């Protein structure tokens, strides 16, 4: 059952994408969109139950363990939310002419192809397949980013595809090195399978693994938006259509993180845990620090959110770098929390942008007066991103902090907290300026239901995870943590 699911899951979005190429009607397309996502989500939950019952399953180059499952769940939930959101968003976008009605199907198809590549990335056990799928995500999402076709979109797409291709070509180099080290120990057959490598990881030659991990770290780190390789990220995330931005920020960079985590486990087994943690710690701190000034002095709301992703990826990596069960647990939890929250933030920002017809935060004023519900969601998302309880990110940041303090990284903790507070100030300043005050340049027309529904879904998850961690989810995270730290 579960094994079949392993190859069914990537097929679902692929089939959906192909089916979409057959029609031009917006309603049918939206229906297919939501339907496909729902099926994907349902199957994933079935798989999750299977795995929680029977442990990891593998089939050929595919393998699912709890670690991958965490990311997979995040992916399907966000995909579903995005599909629901797209219904109302698209109506408005077509109305104002942002999207051309005749070319919708290619858009939908591309989105689902994008999703398919991400599913493969998560399910891949073979590191080569992982790399191929990652490049696939780059190509599909690059087209989506440039989808609007105006010069800014194309510029962002070009920067994105060039820089990330360079990045993951480094990733490929690292993969080759790891493979070489593994093949040297276990012979060529299956020396690309992560699970197989993990069997012999302690025997690998630390020198090569070290070089390989550095290449992978920088390479996939570029894709994950770690500073200083992050520069493409705000451009891409700000220029993409809002639903795509949500997917990029919510899931894609997390897929790259998954790749990094996979290699981290190998490196930790081969060269001792201290080495990868050291590297991760440095990149995490750099990301948190670098993001700060750009968040403070930002004017474009979507770029603001993009830089925020840089910060939060930094926090995840920081958690991995602090290491230990707590740190890794916190990092994985933060992956989920940030994905959900950031998607919510992009949705809320998208509705605000659609209402005011501008991404400039100085133009968006008094949102609470014209669209109270959307404004509330925007404020909630901002507060959660800033790490305020009772929202989910507070919990994961707390875990990361615990790990840091537990391992006595006082300097890192000091820098981290200082930046978090400053970023909090900046973010709340921007959000407050947008939400409160007298409304300018926006009519008080009713808020469309489907975006609100999508936001409600995500906000519910956000608050739920902020108030409690359900037992099933906790066990999942614990097992995933064991996968990483053994």
């Amino acid at each position, binding site marked *: 059952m579960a094994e079949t699911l392993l190859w069914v899951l990537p097929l679902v979005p692929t089939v959906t994408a192909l089916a979409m190429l057959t029609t031009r009607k917006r309603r049918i397309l939206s229906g297919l969109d939501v339907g496909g996502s729902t099926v994907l989500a349902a199957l994933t939950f079935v798989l999750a139950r299977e795995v929680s019952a029977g442990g990891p399953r593998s089939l050929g180059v595919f393998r699912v363990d709890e670690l991958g499952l965490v990311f997979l769940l995040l992916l399907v939930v966000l995909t579903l939310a995005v599909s629901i959101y797209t219904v109302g968003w698209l109506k408005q976008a077509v109305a104002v002419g942002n999207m051309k009605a005749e070319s919708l199907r290619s858009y939908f198809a591309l989105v689902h192809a994008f999703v398919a590549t991400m599913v493969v990335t998560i399910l891949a056990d073979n590191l080569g397949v992982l790399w191929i799928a990652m490049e696939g995500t780059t190509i599909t999402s690059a087209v989506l980013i440039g989808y609007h076709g105006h010069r800014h979109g*194309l510029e962002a797409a070009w920067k994105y595809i060039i820089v990330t291709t360079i990045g993951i070509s480094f990733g490929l180099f690292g993969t080759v090195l790891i493979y070489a080290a593994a093949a040297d120990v276990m012979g060529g057959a299956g020396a690309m399978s992560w699970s197989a490598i993990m069997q012999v990881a302690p025997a690998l030659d630390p020198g*090569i693994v070290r070089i390989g991990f550095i290449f992978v770290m920088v390479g996939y780190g570029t894709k994950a938006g770690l500073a200083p390789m992050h520069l493409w990220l705000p451009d891409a995330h700000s220029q993409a259509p809002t639903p795509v931005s949500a997917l990029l920020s919510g899931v894609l960079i997390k897929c790259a993180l998954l790749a990094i985590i996979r290699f981290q486990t190998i490196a930790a087994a081969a060269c001792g845990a201290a080495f990868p943690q050291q590297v991760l710690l440095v990149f995490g701190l750099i990301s948190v620090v670098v993001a700060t000034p750009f968040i403070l002095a930002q004017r474009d709301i979507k770029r603001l959110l993009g830089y925020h992703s840089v910060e939060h990826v930094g926090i995840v990596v920081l958690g991995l770098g602090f290491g230990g069960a707590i740190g890794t647990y916190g990092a994985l939890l933060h992956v989920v929390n940030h994905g959900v929250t950031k998607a919510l933030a992009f949705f809320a920002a998208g509705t605000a942008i659609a209402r005011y017809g501008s991404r400039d935060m100085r133009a968006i004023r008094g949102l609470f007066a014209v669209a109270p519900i959307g404004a509330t969601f925007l404020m909630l998302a901002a507060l959660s991103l800033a790490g305020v309880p009772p929202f989910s990110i507070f919990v994961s940041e707390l875990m990361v902090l615990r790990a840091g303090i537990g391992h006595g990284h006082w300097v890192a903790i000091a820098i981290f907290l200082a930046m978090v507070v400053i970023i909090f100030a900046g973010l709340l300043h921007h959000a407050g300026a947008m939400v409160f005050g007298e409304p300018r340049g926006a009519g008080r027309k009713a808020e469309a239901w489907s975006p609100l529904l999508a936001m409600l879904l995500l906000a519910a998850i956000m608050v739920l995870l902020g108030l409690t961690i359900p037992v099933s989810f906790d066990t999942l995270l614990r097992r995933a943590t064991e996968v990483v730290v053994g």
Partner: protein
Amino acid sequence: MSAETIQTIIDDLGALLLFTMILIVAASQISRAIYAVAAQSLFIAIAGAVLATATGNVDLWVIAGVTLAVKATLLPWVLHWVVRRMNVRREVEPVIPIAATLVLAVAVVVMSFHLSASLGSVRQAITGNALPVGIALTLTGVLVMATRKTALSQMVGLFASENGIFFTAMAVTQGMPLIIEIGVILDVILAALVMTIMVLRVRSTVDADIAELDRLRG
């Protein structure tokens, strides 16, 4: 052939690859850079053939063939076609002087050899100097991308760095799985196509080189 001869051959090919790399860096005309990268791909195909005969690994024959077909023929042709299509600015426009780029390239090469020298047991995992050469090629290729203004020369740099990875991958003693190599090459082709489309599209909509758009900042 004995392992030593293989190693010497690989090392010589590596030297040739580095030479072509220097040509790419030093090329002042885009077309020359394209020829250089084609030649580089050709050498890599040869290296693949040599290793294939040495190890009797059939996959390597296929890979060598595909490399010859795609990277030594198809992609250079595409690039040339694009150059002809948008018939302006044949010369590469460096961001920093080419001499400075060369110096940096030398630094990269030195670093990569120093790096692999610091590793003891590379040689039984990866044949000969394939690792340092591969690192050098990869980084220098990216260096070229970082120091050239036009989109095409950036694509050239990208292919050069891909070549570096291929060379190392081939030289891995056990050989890479065929399917992976094929997938990688397919991805490269796809990426190249998408990039080409973008270049042409920007050229057609706003009459500018896509690599010079810099409105998104901060």
